[in-house]
């Protein structure tokens, strides 16, 4: 049995769960986690294609994505913490200082 479309469908569902999280939640950290879900689903697609294609380039790409995700997590959390220090909230709807 060819399981490739099943992997892709699981990855698609994971991606949409992440999108729902970004759209419906207001806590900055949960939005962050949803973004990680989306990145993971993209990684899963890469590895699935790489495995069924018999080519490891896709896995190397996943490696790069992980490094970028780590950098993004560090900077993003630093931003969240410094915002929290100024506004005492992590709710992204209350951080509307640019909206006039």
């Amino acid at each position: 049995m060819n399981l490739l479309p099943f992997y892709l469908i699981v990855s698609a569902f994971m991606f949409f769960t992440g999108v729902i999280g970004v759209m419906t939640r207001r806590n900055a950290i949960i939005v962050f986690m949803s973004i990680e879900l989306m990145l993971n689903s993209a990684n899963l697609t890469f590895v699935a294609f790489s495995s069924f294609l018999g080519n490891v380039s896709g896995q190397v790409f996943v490696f790069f994505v992980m490094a970028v995700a780590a950098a993004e997590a560090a900077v993003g959390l630093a931003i969240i913490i410094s915002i929290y220090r100024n506004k005492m909230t992590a709710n992204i709807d209350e951080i509307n200082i640019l909206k006039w």
Partner: protein
Amino acid sequence: MTYYTFAFYAFAAIILLSAYAVVTSKNVIYSAFSLMLTFFGVAGFYALLGADFIAIVQLIVYVGGILTLMLFGVMLTNKITETEIKTGVFQVLPASIIIGMFSGVLIASISNNRWTVAEKLNNPQNSLVGIGSILMNEYILIFELLGVLLLIALIGAASIARK
């Protein structure tokens, strides 16, 4: 049903249920815990796909690094003495309509496509060697640039989070 398909469905169930719990649970710590399960499930998928190195790196980087950072974020952006860390859910209807449309299109296109598979699947014993040689030969510039990126992110995060 072979062991392989059984493992596939088990990991798929873990991933989808815990991903659902990440975005719906009211408690941020429960979200973090479910996200850990999701990462485990994805690592299991990688192992099933013969990408053992990526599976372990997934555990080290995501579970050991990124999620720990997030837990720190949760603990530092909520009041320490309260265990109740709750947040609400908004805009469920528009979100579900948009997602329904997009997911319908994507899943229809995935399932209607006829996927062909390479004859010789890669050997899991060689994936580590393969990744290493390809990383050091073809993608060496990107690899070096990633090091610079991580250094910049480290300095940037430290300077942003400093008082």
